[in-house]
């Protein structure tokens, strides 16, 4: 992480690309029991289209961390 700023007890950091990939991977494993790469492949393939599972949404919100 770099560019740490702190104010009022809340700090802000920007993830490195490697750390970003790890954020998505951790969430995909924890919530869907698959790797981040597997999640992205399924996402790109449209496997989740039309699915209304909040768990998928939770992981999808983190896609910008890996791309």
């Amino acid at each position: 992480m770099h560019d740490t700023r702190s104010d009022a007890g809340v700090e802000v950091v920007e993830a490195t690309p490697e750390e970003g990939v790890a954020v998505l991977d951790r969430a995909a494993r924890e919530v869907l029991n698959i790797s981040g790469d597997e999640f992205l492949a399924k996402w790109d393939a449209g496997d989740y289209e039309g699915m209304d599972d909040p768990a998928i949404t939770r992981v999808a919100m983190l896609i910008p961390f890996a791309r």
Partner: protein
Amino acid sequence: MPGRTPTEAVDAFLEPLKESLACVARAKITLSPGGRAIRGKTHALTVNDDKPISLRYPPGAPVLMLRVCMQYEIVPNDQPGQEPWRVSTRGYDYELQAASGEIIWSYHWHPGTRVERPHIHIGRTQLADDAVMSAKAHHPTDRVSLESIIRACITEYGADPLKDDWDKTLALREGLFKLYRRWS
């Protein structure tokens, strides 16, 4: 709020989030790579590495936790007379959890999917076995601010504020949110 540069616009976007979060937690906001300056791309932020924040409660009281994730984009500001860059929120996921990790509710907005409008999911532990509602159902809401979520954690769910001036802070930040938002 707008800024003279993309980075200034991101800082202006983050400032109210930081002040509002500080009302209930000492926390860390993590931006996705490039999230402070890169334009033309959707960024994300998480709080405490996407782990729920433990809210503070009096000794012996059940502890609830808040998980926060947002998406945003740095965009040109087309408002005359204002700074040239602003940040536009592209989605959010605000989730209240029990200490066990069970979801109590989650406020979502994730345009580009089947359910375009903001909505709430009610956690399955909050529903009776024979409930008509389900945890997967999307119940429509207006756009919800992080400030209003934090206020609800304090006023409706009994979390102890960490700042004496939390009410004023949240009111001020909520007012700015309403002033600069482009839709509700």
